[in-house]
């Protein structure tokens, strides 16, 4: 609920940020704005070439050659001379030109893989890491006059993020992307003296809208202010999972009443109109996904994945392979792939023409708590109770990278246009990662389990829900949350952050 009383500092900042966004208009309000911004920047402003002699060698001298140099370099890896660096060490080459995320040297110094280097020291400063990354990316130049090296090995999928597959077109010229509720009928919010844990949380990829599960309702907020914009009734029961369509026009919820029955309901965001409703079995639907075409729905019905044609309401396919409750379901942005995860750690990749299984994505040792597609559709990330995040290639289901993200279990994962990931965990932390699994940022810890994370269409903002029922909005560059509210609570929470 919106917080009453004097407007605290964070709110003022948030308001100004929001105003700024409005000013920026269509282009600036773009999740992919960062990518768009850096590319033209590269053209206009000449980037200094990163070379071994001028940039990297001094870093190595300062940090590495104490062990990896001299008469008997550790692991036979000599980082003091260019040729020796290229030659690698006893375990082979450590650098792949143009592909930092497959270069062992970079993975170790960025702490994406173990053993962390330099051993028992803090990670290198960001600026130095960035130098090494750009040096590898630029083809391992020796001096400014060298020619960039290339590798015959294909660049890791993780190093190359394509443009999003579907870039929505605004319905009206000049209108910002991302639907916002308009003229919804005011429905009062159901409240209780205590909040339930946030389990259903979604953010529009094109605006600052956030949807949170309430008591037999779905509450839609503006994440910048925590201001309630609208209420969607869900008398079918408890919302368990919420999601926006890729264009931000449709919002759907999976949920129901435990031991009674489940349902999936979709709304048009602009009008608040119900678009579809599908009921299911005798228990809550724990996960569901809408096909990008908007015509069919995949939903977890106990251990079976049902594919439902929305127009007719008929089940067209039943995918019966999971051995435990299906809890995570997501279509790839192009709709060609579906990934489904269960409570036992089973994860399956399907193709959506014949509904054949492409691959079992095996590796998780605990419930799959979330799946997130990279918007270019080539990589999907899964999070698990076992604490790991795993990434998979979408064509054949090849495992790409995995890492321990949260001890005790990852509760949710979300993916940004540039491939960066956000996770939340039982440790009460929210973390952001690059695709190699190096940690970029950390938020919290919260007092209790961080249950869900979503990325709003404002670059660098993430929304986190927790067990006690709080929703927080963070800007990636700030340690304090920009906004915090508790949906569906009878009393206003005590003043303060």
């Amino acid at each position, binding site marked *: 609920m919106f917080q009453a009383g004097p407007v605290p500092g964070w709110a003022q900042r948030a308001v100004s940020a929001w105003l700024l966004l409005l000013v920026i208009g269509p282009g600036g309000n773009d999740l992919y704005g960062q990518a768009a911004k850096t590319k033209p920047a590269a053209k206009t402003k000449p980037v200094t070439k990163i070379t071994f002699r001028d940039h990297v060698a001094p870093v190595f001298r300062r940090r590495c050659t104490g062990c990896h140099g001299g008469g008997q370099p550790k692991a036979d890896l000599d980082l003091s001379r260019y040729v020796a660096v290229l030659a690698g060490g006893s375990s082979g080459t450590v650098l792949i030109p143009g592909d930092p995320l497959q270069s062992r040297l970079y993975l170790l110094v960025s702490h994406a893989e173990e053993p962390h280097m330099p051993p028992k020291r803090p990670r290198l400063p960001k600026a130095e890491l960035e130098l090494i990354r750009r040096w590898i990316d630029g083809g391992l130049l020796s001096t400014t006059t060298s020619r960039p090296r290339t590798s015959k090995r294909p660049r890791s999928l993780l190093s190359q993020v394509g443009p999003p597959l579907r870039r929505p077109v605004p319905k009206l010229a000049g209108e910002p992307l991302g639907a916002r509720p308009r003229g919804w009928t005011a429905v009062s919010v159901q409240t209780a003296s205590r*909040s339930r844990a946030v389990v259903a949380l979604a953010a529009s990829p094109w605006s600052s809208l956030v949807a949170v599960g309430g008591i037999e309702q779905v509450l839609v907020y503006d994440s910048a202010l925590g201001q309630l914009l609208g209420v969607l009734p869900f008398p079918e029961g408890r919302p368990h999972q919420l999601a926006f369509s890729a264009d931000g026009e449709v919002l759907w919820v999976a949920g129901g009443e435990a031991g009674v029955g489940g349902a999936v309901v979709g709304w048009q965001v602009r009008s608040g109109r119900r678009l579809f409703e599908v009921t299911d079995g005798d228990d809550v639907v724990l996960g569901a996904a809408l096909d990008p075409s908007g015509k069919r729905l995949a939903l977890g019905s106990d251990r079976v994945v049902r594919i439902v044609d929305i127009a007719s309401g008929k089940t067209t396919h039943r995918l019966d392979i999971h051995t435990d409750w299906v809890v995570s379901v997501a279509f790839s942005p192009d709709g060609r792939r579906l990934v489904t995860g269960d409570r036992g750690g089973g994860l399956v990749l399907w193709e959506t023409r014949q509904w054949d299984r492409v691959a079992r994505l095996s590796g998780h040792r605990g419930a799959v708590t979330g799946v997130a597609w990279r918007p270019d559709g080539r990589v999907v990330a899964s999070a698990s109770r076992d604490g790991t995040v795993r990434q998979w290639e979408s064509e054949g289901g090849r495992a790409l990278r995995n890492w321990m993200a949260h001890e005790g279990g990852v509760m949710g994962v979300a993916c940004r246009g540039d491939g960066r990931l956000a996770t939340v965990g039982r440790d009460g932390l929210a973390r952001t990662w690059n695709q190699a699994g190096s940690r970029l940022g950390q938020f919290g810890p919260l007092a209790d389990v961080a249950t869900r994370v979503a990325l709003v269409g404002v670059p660098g903002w993430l929304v986190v829900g927790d067990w006690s029922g709080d929703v927080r909005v963070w800007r990636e560059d700030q340690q304090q949350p920009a906004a915090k509210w508790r949906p569906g609570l009878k009393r206003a929470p005590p003043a303060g952050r």
Partner: protein
Amino acid sequence: MSPGSITRPTADLRGVLCVALLLACAGGVVAGEPVIRVYPSRVVLEGAADRQRVIVQAVDPDGRTLDLTSRARLVPSLPGRVRIVDGMLEPLVDGTLELEVSVDGRRVQVPVTVRDAAAKAPVRFGLDVMPVLTKGGCNSGSCHGASRGQRGFRLSVFGFDPAGDYFRITREFVGRRIDLARPASSLLLTKPLEQVVHGGGQRFDSDSEMYTVLLKWLEQGAPVDGKDVPRVTRLEVFPSEVVLSGAGAGGQPAAGDSHRLVVRAHYDDGTDRDVTGLSVFTSTNTAAALVSFAGVVSGQRRGESFVMVMYGEHNVGLPVIVVPSGPAAKFPALPVANRVDELVHAKLRKLRVVPSKLCDDGTFLRRVYLDTIGLLPEPSEYARFVADQRPDKRKRLVDTLLGRPEFTDLWVMKWAELLQVRNVKGGFFGWLRKRYLANVPMDRMVRELLTAEGGFFRDPPAQYFRQVGKPKILAENVAQVFMGTRIQCAQCHNHPFDRWTMNDYYAFAAFFAQLGSKRNWEDTREQIVFNTGSGEVRHPIDDRVMAPRFLGGKVPKLAGRDRRAVLAEWLTDAGNPWFARNLANIAWAQYFGRGIVDEVDDVRLSNPPSNPELLDFLADRLVADGYDFRKLIRTITLSHAYQRATEPTPSNLRDHRNFSRAEFRRLRAEVLHDCLCQATGVPSRLGGFPLGTRAVQLPVASMSSEFLTTFGRSNRETVCSCEVDVQPNLSQALHLINGSTTWGKIERGRVLEQLMTRHDDPGDVIDALFVRCLSRRPTKDERTRLLAAEVAATDRAEIYQDLFWALLNSKEFLFNH
């Protein structure tokens, strides 16, 4: 709870007795009228939520108890301070008052104190919610307590891991099991109420205390327990004894009268609470007594049961006796030989069971020979004993037998089994034998054993610790052998039918954590056991280091000493509640075929001694006699209880627990073997041991012997008393009938030859064979028929052979009786 609370009257019970006594004086009650008791004898209500039920019991002159609670009127002296709802005392205003309990014109005053009547205490997870999960059966092994849970929801079996259960209920599956915004619609409530589909069906009603506790806890926000949550220190159940009428002597099972039980928990902050509604009740003998979900016990058939009460992880028990309905028959005045008989008779009187008469001399002779030295009496000894007219001849016989080396052999074998001696070399067996021959007091011997260190050859008892590095196994063995209790269950979860928790288990195992072993480099066959002075046992759930704590006792001050020495000191201390009782029980079982606690190594809350006073007496005697085993055995064997006949009386037909008659016991493998050898005069060659070595004397059980294996010798693979199998079976019968052992020995032996040369009269040969095998003369009938067969036979020798074979195959030979 403390170990003593079953057998010793609690403070409250003493209070009750005083009340009853006062009443008897003040009221001028005529002898023969029932005594009225009110439980608890004093009530303290703390906090608004506190409740206490009061029960009223009448004890008839013949010992029968009647539940008068429903007939009693409860009137508080200050009505504003408490109110009484459905028999429950509820606090209203702070202060003290008297509760007047009146029934059948008799009155008893119960002091009541009310404190903090306005204070609302929160529901706590560990204290309140966990017992509900146990009471509801939710965490039982067949439901969510199963190792994989049910439908993904798992609880620790019988609640050994409250922190884990709290996590699984509140946070494992966020958004499902509980709903703090709508507490009543949480799955944690709708499932057990069966408002929604539940595989386990309905577990409780919405008006039950169980439901209320869970709902309140959820309404509070399902908080985790703080550090200040009080812990249960003791559980008690009222009344302290129940004697119910069952069905009549006709034996038709019918509902007898019933008795309500009340359970009270005491906490370490000094408070107490009525936890009847959250306790689980089970009856160990449902043929005798049933107990309901709510804790009402009802009598069925004559017999005994033990009602187990479980509240959370705590257990307490209550003995229930069911006697036939109708007035008690007069119990005969029985002579007693010593204190043992007084105690046995006291129990039998309560049960209204009349014991069998005493056995004759021949039977006693054979019985005491087999039990004490594992051999048959020689015919000459039989003749001498039967002819002996001195009144104390049985006592003299026992004294003689206790002095014989075969007595030592028998007990050394028993201990070699318990200590798992499996190695001829190394001298562990020899050490044991030397200790016994020297009559070293048991406490000293056990101390030497438990603190042993050094090389296996030079210090043989060190072999007891050959399983170095497995402190859990060592702890289990010590508990089972020297304390007679099995703690194995508590390795993985709290013992469901006993008091042992995982904390107890791992803290006890910690006594054996600092042992090391190394090879003796001068003689590489030799292992050396030594104290390393370091090493700890960790709790598997939270990985905390466990400080050594005595089983059911305190955390000792170690002060850098050998942990085992501290343990041995505690174990063999005269005040130790386990050690002497266990030894006494083992001795008793040797002479009666079953222990006062049976099995002897299964002392358990739910397996109480059939006669605790008797066990206490024997243990006290053992301590008083400086742990002299022979003196204890003298006491046992001289009692009339030991000398009873096997023929039952009408009332003790079904009694096998209270020593009202002698039981038939199959001879154990080694003794039977030795008796066969003795009767036929043909020794066996066993393994590589010298001819004439008796089976009882074998140091190991590893050499092959079909006979011993068939008759169930111990393999010494575990310390369990169940390793020795004395159950008869078909292969044993076939082995005796067809096998080479019996027939071969008859053929090779010279017994018949000698008898036939010595006696001309066939009657004398028959008599001699009977005495030789069965320690009795043939009956007139047997003798006449055997003589007739002898006369008709063409080959005299053959008929004697047949008779000899038949005698050795008879049940009378195979069983001690």
